């Protein structure tokens, strides 16, 4: 897993719950709850291209 993400243009995935994503999210991010990460739900993304994930903060 990389800790640097200067790969501008990569899809940004919000892994917070749907309620939290609806309330406040990084503009342009895609909501995909952590517990829903599975083959079918991530099929929209290329596995060989950069992908950025985030939640609230590092805590």
């Amino acid at each position, binding site marked *: *897993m*990389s*800790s*640097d*993400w*200067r*790969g*501008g*243009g*990569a899809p*940004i*995935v*919000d*892994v*917070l719950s749907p309620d939290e*994503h*609806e*309330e*406040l*999210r*990084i*503009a*342009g991010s895609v909501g995909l709850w*952590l517990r829903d*990460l*599975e*083959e079918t739900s*991530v099929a929209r*993304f290329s*596995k*060989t*291209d*950069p*992908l*950025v*994930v*985030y*939640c*609230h*903060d*590092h805590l």
Partner: protein
Amino acid sequence: MSARAAWRLEQLGFTEVYDYEAGRKDWQEVGLPTDGTDPRGPIVAEALTVDPPTCEPGSTVGSARALLLGDWTQVVVVNAPGVILGVMRKESWDAPDESLVEDSMRSGPSTVRPGSLLGPLVERMKRKDTESVLVSDPEGRLIGVLDRDAGEAVLSGDSIEPTFESCDHCPGWWRYRMAAT
């Protein structure tokens, strides 16, 4: 949570997963654009002016004064990485042209974050009769200046011209963020 998500995605075969560890909170604090139903209200980033005139502490007052073009009445003193060291404003300009900025600047001016709520800040500025405040990132690097008039205009619903242009892939401040890190 995002670390677990990154590991999960790697388990699923993704080869280049980046964990934005500082997360949404960091994004908000630096005033990057957000969407959603959050009723927080306007933030500083929506009203600030970027690219104020800057000089280094070793500059002469005369060369700093020459930067006062247009409506600018202050020059921000920064070091090479752009960290705010002081500001030349009001009585600082009484110094002779040949003197050094570091001898007459106002050191350690207060700053706010671009993600701060605009309403309470403008109210504080009114109470203290403050015309403007510097805006910095969490590392103290200069981003811009918030004029109270511009803040009041945004709060009253007046639209202002966008401060940042969008890049091809990401909205607004992303480009700034990339340059600053």
